Each structure stands twice: as C-alpha cells, then as structure tokens.
C-alpha cells in the first residue's frame, strides 16, 4: 500500500522535465517498435508457412518414396499394390500417390487454360480439412463421378466472372504424356475426359501464382492421366533396376492418430520405403523459425539496452537536479526505500510508456510494410491479404513486460543514488 502511494508520486517527478522524459521514452519506443516489428514478421511468416500443415491436417501424413541410392535397384516399387498393402497396416487411414502433372489442357466452350493436375483423395472431405481453401462449391465426396476442382486462376482464364459461376459446368480435360511399357520403351499417350466442376479453391496468400493454377482430380481419375508413372520409371531405369510400369515417385500415407506416426513409419521402412513424417518437417521448420526469432530478439534487445542507457542518464540527471528535494523528503520522513521505489517507478513508467507506444509504432510500421508488400505481390499475381505480420497476445504482453523490466533494471543505479543521498549534505547545498 505504502509502496503504491509512493509510486504514485513518480508521475509528478517525470512531469518536471517533459522534454527529456519524452526523448528518453522515444528511445524505448523505437527499440520496442523495431523489436516488435521484426518478431511479428518472423511469427507471421511462420504462421503462413504452417497454415497448409494445419489446414490440410498434414501432421498425420507420412511422405513415402521408393528407396534411392545404393540398393535402389532391389527396392520394392511404390505402386498401387504396395499402396493397397500399406493401407492394410494398422493405424493407416489412407495411402494415395502424390502426383503433379504439368501441362494439362482444360477447355470450357471456346476458352482454354493450362493447369497442373494434382491428385486429391476423396477422403479429404471426410477429414474436414482443406475447407478453408474452397471458395465455391465443395470437395469430392464418395463415389466415382468424373469431377474436378479448379484453381482460381484457371477459373478466371476459362472466362468465368466469379468462382460460383464455374461450379456445375462441364469442362474438357486433355492430357498427353509418356507411359512406360516395360523394358526401356515409353509410349506417347493422349487422354481426354469430360469433367464436372464441383468446386473452386484459392491458395494461401503467400504461395506463388502456380498454386492457383491447379486442377484437382480424385485419385482414381488421376491414375488415368498419362505420364503419372514416368518419374518413377525413369529413376528406376537410371539406378539400373528392373523397370516398373505402375510405380509412383511419392505417396502420402495418412495415419489415424499422430501417436501412430512412429509405429507406421517403422513398418514402412521395414517394407523397404524411405519415409518422412510431415510433423518432422514442421518441427525442423519450427526450429529454424525459433532461431530466427531469437536472432531478431537479440538485435531488438540491443536497441532496448541502448535505450536503457538513456534512462540511466535521464534519471541520474533527475537525481542530481532534485538533490535538495530528496534531502528534504528524507527530513520529513521519507525512507531510503521510499526514494528507491520512487525512482524505480519513474524508470518503470518510462519503460511502460515506451513499450506501449513501441507496440503502436511496430503495428503501424508493419501495416505500412504489409501495404507495400501487398502492392508488390499483386504485381506478382498474388491477391488477398498477405498477413505477413502476426501480433499474438503473448508477444504484446512479453514486449511490454520486457520493456518495463529492462527500464526498471536501468533505474536501479539512479534509484540507489537517490536512496543514498545524505539529507544533511543535500540540505546544506546552496
């Protein structure tokens, strides 16, 4: 109670030299502003990068590839039979090939677009994932109708004014590619399909334009696209093993529960595949971002420490200027501790004001940078808000707390000087 009331006197002390206190506070403001902007950027970008992981529930996924390197020729192929076997493993929800085929022609009436074919398992809709990327229509459901989901850029190229307009329309797909037919021969094949557009997706803002250029097909339709076995066959040929005509270069295995990840991974390895859990990838990324955040925090903290030197200076001057007043206060009953608290509070107030205004400044700067980056991004065909910066509540709180803490530490020496003022000397000084 007493300490609180003594602390209440601090504002009066600070009002005495408004310009000096303002300048000192500005030092803290800029330091905190820089700190906040940098850390917010690191957190913001991390979130952007992690969005697909979360939104696509990728953390239950294991990426499976055929073994490469030394014994690649003896490794089992990653084909439909292997995927069927994998699906039978306990804990596995689904196993499907990861296929990206470039140069797929999509036609609607007179208009044409070139898209990237991507396989999407029909189960995706059951998992309730990826919903947030669908801007019109829906995901695939069970069944085997010839359906497709188009990227926003493809929809625009095909001449639709809005995503919703494309939903339900019939499009034609035309794909051509090389299919391995055993030995070292490949056959050129062409396929056309008639598909119904059931949905339109938008990619996260940070992803490049190509991410909106896709045509998502159910896995079973994708298997009819020529060229999906080409990569696997080529790498098999290069390693000198027997040619496999129906292998995939990569597949995704979904486990029911992240707790099963390790167990399934061990079994897949035993089957002769190389595996990597997405969770693992995410953790590596997190470590990277943590390192970046630490680095930026250290840089920002250096600025804050320099600002703290300003606080030391300002308060030492205040102690000198108020030398007689401090002596008087002691004569009328202030204890050494009272004066210590008083000056420490003045430091804390500077830190608090600086921290809060620094947050404001950081936010303002980040908005400006967001604007500039958004302007630039539109030039690169990226639309929508980038959300490069994130201001989670914990960061706001930690920043202000840190500014106050550093300032209070800076106030310790001046406060000790005030506490140690000899009242007799102070009152004799004229």
């Amino acid at each position: 109670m007493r300490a609180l009331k003594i602390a209440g006197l601090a504002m009066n002390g600070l009002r005495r030299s408004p310009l000096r206190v303002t300048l000192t506070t500005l030092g803290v403001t800029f330091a905190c502003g820089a700190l906040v902007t940098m850390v917010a950027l690191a957190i913001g970008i991390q979130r952007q990068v992690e969005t697909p992981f979360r939104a696509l529930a990728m953390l239950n996924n294991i990426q499976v590839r055929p073994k490469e390197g030394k014994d690649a020729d003896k490794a089992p192929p990653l084909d439909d039979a292997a995927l069927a076997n994998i699906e039978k493993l306990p804990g596995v929800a689904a196993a499907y090939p990861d296929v990206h085929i470039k140069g797929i022609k999509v036609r609607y009436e007179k208009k044409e677009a070139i898209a990237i074919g991507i396989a999407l398992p029909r189960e995706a809709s059951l998992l309730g994932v990826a919903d947030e990327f669908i801007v019109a229509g829906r995901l695939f459901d069970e069944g085997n109708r010839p359906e497709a989901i188009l990227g926003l850029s493809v929809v625009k190229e095909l001449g639709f004014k809005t995503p919703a307009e494309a939903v339900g329309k019939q499009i034609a797909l035309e794909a051509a590619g090389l299919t391995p037919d055993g030995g070292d021969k490949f056959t050129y094949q062409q396929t056309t399909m008639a598909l119904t557009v059931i949905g339109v997706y938008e990619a996260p803002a940070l992803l490049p334009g190509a991410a909106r250029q896709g045509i998502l097909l159910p896995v079973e339709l994708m298997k009819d696209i020529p060229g999906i076995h080409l990569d696997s066959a080529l790498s098999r040929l290069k390693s000198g093993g027997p040619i496999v005509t129906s292998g995939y270069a990569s597949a995704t295995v979904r486990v029911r529960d992240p707790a099963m990840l390790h167990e399934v991974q061990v079994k897949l390895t035993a089957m002769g595949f190389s595996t990597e859990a997405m969770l693992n990838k995410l953790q590596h990324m997190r470590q990277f971002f943590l390192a970046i955040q630490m680095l930026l925090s250290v840089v920002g903290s250096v600025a804050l420490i320099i600002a703290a030197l300003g606080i030391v200076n300002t308060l030492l001057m205040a102690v000198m200027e108020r030398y007689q007043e401090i002596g008087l206060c002691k004569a009328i009953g202030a204890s050494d501790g009272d004066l210590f608290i008083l000056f420490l509070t003045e430091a804390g107030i500077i830190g608090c004001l600086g921290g809060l205004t620094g947050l404001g400044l950081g936010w303002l700067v980040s908005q400006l940078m967001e604007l500039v980056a958004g302007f630039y991004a539109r030039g690169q065909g990226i639309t929508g808000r980038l959300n490069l910066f994130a201001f989670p509540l914990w960061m706001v709180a930690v920043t202000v707390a840190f500014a106050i803490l550093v300032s209070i530490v800076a106030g310790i020496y001046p406060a000790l000087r005030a506490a140690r003022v000899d009242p007799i000397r102070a009152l004799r000084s004229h």
Partner: protein
Amino acid sequence: MESSDCFIETRGLSRQYRVGPAEIHALVEVDFHVQKGEFVAILGVSGSGKSTLLHLLGGLDTPDCGCVRVGDRDLAGMTSMERTIYRRTVVGFIFQSYYLVGSLTATENVALALTFQGVFGAERTRLAAESIERVGLGLRASHRPNQLSGGEQQRVAIARAIVHRPALLLADEPTGNLDRATAAEVMGLIHQVHRDLGTTVVMVTHDEEMAARVADRVLRIRDGRLEGAGGSA
C-alpha cells in the same frame, strides 16, 4: 534540571568533522535540556554549530559521542530506519530556504509529507487543507511556490512541518531569508503554533530581538559550545 517534564536531554553531545588533516569541532560536549511544550531559541553566529545541533535533535545526524534523548527515545542508539520513523512521527522541520517542491501547489507540498507519513486518500486531503488553513493560506492553497512571496512560502513550509502534529518543531533560521516585517509575521505564526498545539519548539536564529520576543528561553552557542544556563529558564 531533571524534572519529569524534561522532553529533550543531551549529555556530552559532540560532533566533529574531519576535513583533510584538520578536525573541526562543530559541537563540543553540549549538555542541554528542553521541557515539554517549551519554546527555546538558540542564538549564534554563522558556523557556530546551530544547524549541527538541530540535525542531531531531529535524527538526521548521529553524534560522535554523548547522548541525545527525546521523550523516551535514545537517538544515538537508533538504526537508520528507526530514525526515519522518528522524523516521520515526532519531528517537524522548518528551514531557512523553505525547500518547497516547485512543481507542486501549496496543498500538494503539505500532502507530500503526509504521503511519506503513511496518510493517504481523503484523510490526506483533509489534513493538508486544514494545515494550509491554519497558516492563513486558505486562499493560496492551489498556488505554486513561484506564485507565492517568501513569507507565504515559509508559511507553506510551516504547514508542512506541523501537518502531522509533531511533538517537536525544529526551525533552522526560519526568517533568515525574509525582511523584518515578514520575519515578524512568520515568527508570530511559529509562536502561535507553539501556543495552540503545545508543540515543543527549538529554533535557531541570529536575530536576538526576535528570539527574545517569542521564546521562553534563549541560549547562545559559540564555537560548538552552548553558553549560559544549560537548564531551564
């Protein structure tokens, strides 16, 4: 005199300062008694040790030897914190140069003392206003020191010194910065406080005539030695 009314008692009180090789005897073997409710004036030229004595009586300083008792307290044996609490509760100080805080109004200057004395809120406001009223500055309560004359500033300082009703008021040349007429007014105010509140007053001055007019007893100090009667009047 060892009467039961004896409020202040010093015995062999000495204070010296060492400046390089020289030793300055600011106070030498002072034996001194003040009765409860007495108004004692101490006369002496500059450098004779008047302030040193007041600082010892007020618990701002500690003696090199000898003892000083106020009420039933032995000041020489107190810890620093005990002396702080003694100043906070028993003593009121008035100085030659007022020592008001320039950024605070008259009432706020008085309230500042109350804050250190642990009085807060409405009680503090009431007591501060009452004290300002008592020294006749009711209309000047919200003025800052630079809007007040020297005499008025010293009145504020007096209000601050008596706001917690101290048993002992120590005044160090309270009229030293004032012209004669104003000095007489301020002296009158101190006398009035002494009379109305029954406060024991020890006042240091070099104005002999003024001292004789208001004090119950006048003592002289020269080169750190108290002259004349060490006892009561």
